[in-house]
């Protein structure tokens, strides 16, 4: 017999705290679709995605209905196209993006990830072709997400790749200038990218993964914030140790929801279940914000002194609670601080609480990096590359994933607003301190060597 408290607290989380499953992502390997003929390859990948993905949306909705937990996004992640389509040049790569977009539309998913390359140690011809194709591919499609891994703890940082991505970001922004550089919102540059991320823009299916797999991204910043506020109201003397316990318990609950829904969707689709990604992922809605958690912990806003410490506590507690609740944890697993996608963080940027430097500092204790940060449109490719290089260094040295999803908004300057729409939200453009002063370093090129794995201070 269930207790009233169990039943009613569950309903409260659902009805007023935005408890949901943020994404169920079906990984589809395209490696067996390989062909030297681009048209044949496109036909193969279209057929495979549509066959495996046909029932994804319906199944997620049915399972969501059964448990009363909405599965907000259903997505597909495919093998890195730079590998699956290694023989092709950039024009066919753009057409492949069109085919992926079409397949995504047919199966009814809002994003398909995996227009990706892994170049931390250097480029293969397919990698160069794919990166060259990214701006046009993203500008001409609706649902494609692209990612490029330019660094890893084992390989170091491919600085030629970093500069190339600086230029790619600029070009993607230019091609979507009328939409505030929207293409850049679908492009992540990574260090240590995991093979099983369910979240966009970094979702792709690693080459060590099965032919098809279900990975789940949970959510729940609203649930965490409310749990903290309720507990602090009930006992104003709660200290940080106790608050960490409360976050752990809440993360446990949120993760159990993801585990239950994910395993059932996987079973119904007859596909293995992969991992739960324990990330607090916000949306641009009031009450569904990671930024609000900082306020519930006694800071005036995210970005003020103390923010890095709060984020460190939050991120660690979410992992501890979540790891206990799930049989397999993976992906990014940390708190997200995407500026435009979180109303409260976006507001902190507008009011000047949050600078690029503070954001960068916070990414050293959480996943996933400088996420959805709008920059002045006249920033150079070299400066973007330098910001990316800093972010990669944090990931490489700390043996963690970091990423940069930067949007130089064409024709706009610091303080202006950029509008991306829907889940991508809107953001005030952040000012750059000393822009255009990194060019000499960035043009040195080569690879920053992999760090020592001992002597860890």
């Amino acid at each position, binding site marked *: *017999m*269930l207790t*009233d408290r169990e039943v*009613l607290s569950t309903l409260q989380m*659902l009805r007023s705290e935005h408890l949901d499953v943020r994404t169920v992502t079906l990984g589809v390997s395209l490696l067996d679709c390989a062909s030297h003929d681009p048209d044949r390859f496109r036909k193969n990948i279209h057929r495979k995605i549509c066959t495996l993905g046909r029932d994804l949306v319906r199944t997620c909705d049915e399972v969501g*209905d059964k*448990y009363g937990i909405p599965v907000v996004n259903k997505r597909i992640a495919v093998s890195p196209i730079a590998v699956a389509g290694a023989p092709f040049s950039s024009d066919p790569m753009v057409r492949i993006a069109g085919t992926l977009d079409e397949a995504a539309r047919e199966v009814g998913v809002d994003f398909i990830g995996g227009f990706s390359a892994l170049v931390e140690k250097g480029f293969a011809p397919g990698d160069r072709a794919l990166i060259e194709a990214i701006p046009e591919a993203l500008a001409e499609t609706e649902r494609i997400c692209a990612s490029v891994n330019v660094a890893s703890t084992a390989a170091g940082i491919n600085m030629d790749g970093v500069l190339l991505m600086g230029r790619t970001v600029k070009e993607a922004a230019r091609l979507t200038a009328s939409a505030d550089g929207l293409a850049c919102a679908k492009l992540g540059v990574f260090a240590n990218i995991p093979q099983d991320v369910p979240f966009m823009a970094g979702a792709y299916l690693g080459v060590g993964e099965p032919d098809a797999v279900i990975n789940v991204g949970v959510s729940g910043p609203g649930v965490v914030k409310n749990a903290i506020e309720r507990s602090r109201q009930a006992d104003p003397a709660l200290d940080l140790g106790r608050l960490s316990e409360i976050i752990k318990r809440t993360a446990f609950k949120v993760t*159990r929801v993801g585990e*239950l829904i994910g395993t059932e969707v996987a079973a119904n689709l007859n596909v293995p279940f992969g991992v739960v990604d324990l990330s607090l992922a916000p949306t641009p809605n009031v009450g569904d914000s990671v930024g609000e958690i900082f306020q519930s912990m006694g800071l005036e806003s995210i970005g003020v002194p103390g923010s890095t410490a709060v984020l460190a506590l939050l991120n660690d507690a979410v992992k501890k609670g979540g790891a206990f609740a799930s049989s397999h944890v993976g992906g990014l697993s940390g708190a997200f601080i995407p500026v435009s996608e979180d109303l409260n963080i976006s507001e902190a940027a507008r009011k000047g609480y949050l600078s690029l430097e503070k954001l960068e500092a916070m990414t050293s204790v959480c996943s996933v990096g400088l996420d959805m940060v709008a920059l002045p449109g006249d920033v150079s490719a070299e400066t973007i590359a330098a910001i990316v290089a800093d972010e990669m260094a944090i990931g490489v040295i700390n043996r963690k994933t970091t990423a940069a999803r930067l949007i130089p908004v064409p024709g706009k300057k610091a303080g202006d607003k950029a509008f991306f729409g829907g889940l991508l939200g809107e953001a005030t453009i952040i000012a750059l301190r000393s822009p255009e002063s990194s060019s000499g370093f960035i043009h040195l090129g080569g690879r920053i060597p992999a760090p020592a794995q001992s002597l860890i201070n």
Partner: protein
Amino acid sequence: MEKVVLSVLGTDRPGIVAAVSSVLMDYGCNVEDVSQTILQGEFVGIVIASVPDQTPLEDLRQALGRALDPLDLHVMLKSLNASTPPGAGTESEPFVVVTTGPDRLGLVAGITEVMARFEVNITQLKAAFRGGDDPHRNTMIYEVDVPPDTDPQGFRLALRKRAEELGLTLSLQHRDIFEALHRI
């Protein structure tokens, strides 16, 4: 050995279960299952016990009456039929229905009519109506078994429609979600 089921209803006070069980003991009856609950000071209990062969049930009933009448308790006794309970042997799925919303006449009747129509069996029900418009002071929590051949979408829609007519917010969720969230 025959089994009996007896129910006891009356104003709550200390000693009710002791009075019932001591009579059962005197007659050599072995108590197998007991459940009791109290609503607004009113006690109700249900007991299933096995009775030694050749025990005249009328004697037992009279003995219970003698013990319980002075306590102003009403007792009912009957033999337990060997019939199988509803849903036994079929793979029914446990769901939880929760409604919140302002009190008015016919809420329980309205919701349970839909359940009965779909042959959905209620296994636990807790409802409290404290009046006023605060939805959380007026809740019904049903644990139900939904037979495997029930059209889930049809049942869900019928419940939703009825809830809307009654001014209630209703949720229908598989029981596992509550277990997953709250129990290790």
